[in-house]
C-alpha cells in the first residue's frame, strides 16, 4: 500500500473511532492464536475486543465438529474489513471470513439490524448476531468438506423440485436461505440455526446428514 492509500485508509478508520491499544490487540491476537484462528487487520479495530472474542469462540465451537476449518493451510482467517458496505460479513476464497468493521465495532447497531431481519423472516427465527460467524463458517465447511447443500436438501425433503424445497425453506428456515438458486445459503443458514441452538428441525437434520457424509 503506498503512502496515499495508507493515509486514506487511516482517515477511513478514524471516521469510526480510535483503534484499540497495542495491549488489547496483543490480547486479542493471543486469544485467537490459542484457538488456531488467524487474524488480519484487527490493529485498526475500533470496537470492543470482547465482541471479536465471541466471534472467535463461535468459530472454535464449530471446529470441534469440523476440524478442517482450522487447518494450518486452508483454515479460517478472520479479516477486519472497512469496505463491506451493507454486508455483515462475507467469505472469500472459501476460507477468509471478512467482518464488517462498521457493524462489529458498533454492537448495538449490529444487534438492531440483525433483529429486524429476524422479525421479517429474513434470518432464522430465534437467532441473534452471534449467528453471523456461524453462518459464514457454514460456507467454509461447504467448501472444505465438499457439501452440496441443494442435493442434501432434496434428499432430506424427498423432492427433486427446487421450487418445493425453496417454499419449505422460506417458511421453515429463512428467506435468506433461498436467495441463490444453487442453494449456497442453505448450509450457512442451517449452521446459523444449529449452532445457535434454536431447535430448528430442518437445520438439525441437515447437520446430522453433513456429519454422516463427511
Amino acid at each position, binding site marked *: 500500500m503506498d503512502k496515499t492509500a495508507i493515509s486514506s485508509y487511516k482517515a477511513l478508520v478514524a471516521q469510526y473511532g480510535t483503534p484499540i491499544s497495542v495491549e488489547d490487540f496483543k490480547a486479542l491476537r493471543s486469544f485467537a492464536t490459542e484457538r488456531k484462528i488467524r487474524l488480519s487487520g484487527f490493529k485498526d479495530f475500533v470496537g470492543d475486543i470482547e465482541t471479536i472474542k465471541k466471534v472467535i469462540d463461535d468459530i472454535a465451537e464449530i471446529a470441534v465438529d469440523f476440524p478442517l476449518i482450522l487447518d494450518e493451510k486452508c483454515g479460517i482467517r478472520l479479516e477486519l474489513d472497512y469496505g463491506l458496505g*451493507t*454486508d*455483515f*460479513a*462475507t467469505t472469500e476464497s472459501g476460507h477468509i471470513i471478512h467482518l464488517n468493521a462498521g*457493524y462489529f465495532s458498533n454492537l448495538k447497531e449490529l444487534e438492531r*439490524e*440483525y433483529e429486524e*431481519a429476524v422479525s*421479517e423472516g*429474513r434470518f432464522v427465527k430465534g437467532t441473534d448476531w452471534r449467528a*453471523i460467524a456461524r*453462518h*459464514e463458517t457454514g460456507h467454509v465447511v461447504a467448501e472444505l468438506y465438499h457439501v452440496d447443500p441443494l442435493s442434501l436438501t432434496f434428499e432430506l425433503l424427498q423432492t427433486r*423440485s*427446487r*421450487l*418445493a424445497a*425453496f*417454499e419449505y425453506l*422460506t417458511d421453515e428456515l429463512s*428467506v*435468506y436461505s*433461498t*436467495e*441463490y*438458486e444453487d442453494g449456497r445459503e442453505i448450509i*450457512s443458514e442451517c449452521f446459523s440455526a444449529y449452532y445457535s441452538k434454536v431447535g430448528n428441525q430442518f437445520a438439525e437434520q441437515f447437520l446430522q446428514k453433513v456429519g454422516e457424509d463427511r
Partner: protein
Amino acid sequence: MKSYSEAMYWKKNKEWYVANYDKDRYELTKAAPPRAIESFRMYLRQNDLPDNPVPINFGEDVYV
C-alpha cells in the same frame, strides 16, 4: 451475509408471488407493487435466470 437484500423484497408478502409448479418457477401476482417487481428482476438477474420484461398488465393474474 447481507444485512439486507433488496433482491428478496418480493418475498416479503405472500400475496405478491406464487410458486408455479407447472413451470417450476416463481411468478409475481398482480398484487405485487412496483418495488417488488423490480426486486424480482434483481433476483432473476442475480441467479442468471431469464430476465423477462415484466408486463405491467393488471388484467392478468401473474407477471413474468
